[in-house]
């Protein structure tokens, strides 16, 4: 994703830096210590946790379900307060199929600007603090996510976070939301765009150290929770305590037991994805090995040339002639640069994520099957 117009849109939507609170006289007062935590102008308090509002949860779920494939993504709005990033609203971004098209990028920026302005008028928060992405079966390591997050992390105050929502897990009954941001080490490597083996070793980068997870909480405000509890409480008639036969549940939201279903629904798909990712990884490794071999060949040729030169010079000096100049080897032999290993790193991360979700389904499946088997009294 080209960084220019997106970054410009982000810069345009940043909250303007607030002046220190002044009563009426234009003198700058120091912020009283009690308020220092709330009014955090320099973004000094680091983010330690993320808090999602109930509405954001349902909006993300709805958008992820309706978007074709797994392309649901959108922006998060909110504020940070005393080390906790509170996400209070979100909106989906239209899906642009062709990422390279300049016009579509501009239209996305326009959409974003218009949405932020409109939300501001109804007193909703309008500062972008990150973005969310929907995905299936655990596969959120891809280039666009990394790129977007890197841009956000540089531009936004506190660095943005990305919230990842797993659609397939939610369909199984466990709504999953996880918040991530890029680690320091990865950001350094990314800025230099240098992912050769040496740089990986320096930063000790494996796929698991690309993103770090931030603890996530979900908050329902009092109004919503009271509304929900009115809807979901079972209206139990008073006679039920003595005679359970009379107790009927008339809740608007009856409890669901869909997690008790036997059968591993997503396993074939998951296995397919693992095999596909492994194939991709193998191709990638093959490419890397080929490039390495080329580099080694060129290096060997260059070294041989230098050695020959030295030998010639030595023999000429011995014979009393002027030594030949040692030409710059780099101009003669073009050694291709070290290949970037970012893609293979991301692929490994994806394989690991698929394996993890497969493991979870298998473990719950095992528990359920042994429970069903235990019914026979074995």
């Amino acid at each position: 994703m080209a960084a220019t117009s997106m970054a410009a849109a982000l810069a345009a939507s940043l909250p303007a830096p607030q002046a220190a609170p002044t009563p009426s006289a234009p003198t700058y007062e120091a912020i009283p210590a009690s308020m220092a935590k709330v009014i955090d102008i320099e973004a000094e308090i680091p983010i330690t946790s993320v808090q999602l509002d109930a509405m954001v949860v349902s909006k993300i779920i709805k958008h992820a379900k309706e978007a074709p494939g797994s392309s649901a993504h959108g922006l998060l709005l909110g504020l940070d307060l005393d080390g906790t990033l509170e996400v209070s609203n979100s909106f989906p971004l239209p899906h642009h199929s062709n990422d390279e098209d300049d016009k579509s990028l501009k239209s996305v920026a326009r959409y974003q600007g218009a949405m932020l302005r409109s939300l501001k008028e109804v007193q909703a928060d309008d500062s972008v603090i990150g973005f969310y992405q929907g995905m299936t079966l655990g596969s959120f390591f891809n280039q666009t996510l990394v790129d977007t997050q890197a841009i956000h992390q540089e531009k936004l105050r506190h660095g943005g976070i990305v919230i990842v929502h797993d659609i397939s897990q939610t369909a199984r009954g466990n709504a999953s939301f996880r918040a991530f941001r890029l680690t320091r080490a990865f950001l350094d490597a990314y800025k230099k765009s240098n992912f050769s083996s040496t740089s990986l070793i320096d930063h000790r980068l494996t796929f698991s150290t690309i993103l770090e997870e931030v603890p996530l909480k979900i908050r329902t405000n009092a109004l919503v929770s009271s509304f929900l509890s009115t809807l979901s409480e079972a209206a139990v008639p008073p006679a039920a305590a003595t005679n359970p036969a009379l107790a009927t549940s008339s809740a608007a939201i009856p409890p669901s037991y869909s997690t008790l279903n036997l059968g591993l629904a997503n396993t074939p798909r998951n296995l397919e994805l693992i095999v596909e990712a492994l194939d991709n990884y193998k191709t990638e490794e093959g490419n890397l090995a080929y490039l390495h071999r080329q580099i080694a060949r060129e290096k060997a040729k260059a070294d041989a040339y230098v050695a020959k030169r030295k030998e010639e010079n030595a023999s000429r000096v011995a014979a009393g002639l002027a030594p030949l100049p040692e030409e710059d080897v780099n101009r003669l032999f073009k050694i291709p640069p070290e290949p970037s290993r970012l893609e293979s790193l991301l692929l490994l991360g994806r394989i690991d994520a698929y394996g993890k979700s497969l493991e979870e389904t298998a473990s719950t499946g095992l528990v359920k099957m042994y429970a069903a088997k235990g019914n026979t009294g074995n």
Partner: protein
Amino acid sequence: MPLGPPSSAIFLQNVAPGFTSTPGRTPTSVTVHPVALFSILDHYLRRNDAQDRVIGTLLGTRSENGEVEVRSAFAVLHSETAEQVAVDMEYHRTMYDLHHKVNPKEVIVGWYSTGSNLNTYSALIQNFYTQETAPHQAIHLAINTGVEEGQQAGVKAYVGSPVGVNPKPENCVFVPIPCELRFNDAERSGLDLLTSAPANPGSATFTNPASDLELLERSLQQLSDMLDRVLSYVQSVLAGEVKGDAAVGRYLMDALGPSTEDLEKGEFNSHLQDTLMVSYLANLVRSQAEVSSRLALVKAS
């Protein structure tokens, strides 16, 4: 799933046969998705102090048999004084266009307001929205947030119909139509997440997303509690303390009757073996990926 205190209202509807696909027919029922509900409540929370109630637009889809499904909602600026009411149409248009870009299938189906008093202003706004949703009729959702004393939280849906000898835009009768909450699997698990924390009334509740196994544990625990209750009931019936209800007894026999004896044969065991193998494979894949990434870090010396 009814949305609101049970009432004895009977819904009068004009459901003549052969009335199906003519446009302009009255909607017969409304289903609301939780997203819309939460957006409305959030908007109500954020309103200015001067405003007593807030209004906004409802987006959704219509089905052929007159059922309207409300999928999302957004707030609209409006001001209401003793003399007049004003709705910001420009804002409404802009927001609708933005929403339409993301989700082309949703159209304007009506409007909502918090607070359940239906007055002349409601009639005027209903008229405006009917123009927007032409040729179909606009539905009006009145959400009672339950904040004031004596009013229970709930949602009611209405359709406007003209009344009076000379129908004027500011007179209309709001005919109630049935309204319920509907959600699919994904939203269901989201709702579970939101309602699962032990409720601490009066303050915000915090929940932490749990793993699959914890969720399974919770439902197994609930199941076990239910089984305990049933067991105590059955025992009390057998001991003669409580008169048994024949219907309940038959239902229990049907539910708990089929045994799992013959599961041993057939595919159960092979499925179990498959699951074990899949689990082993997943672990293998993960350790392989980890080893491979560490190998990349080893410098060839």
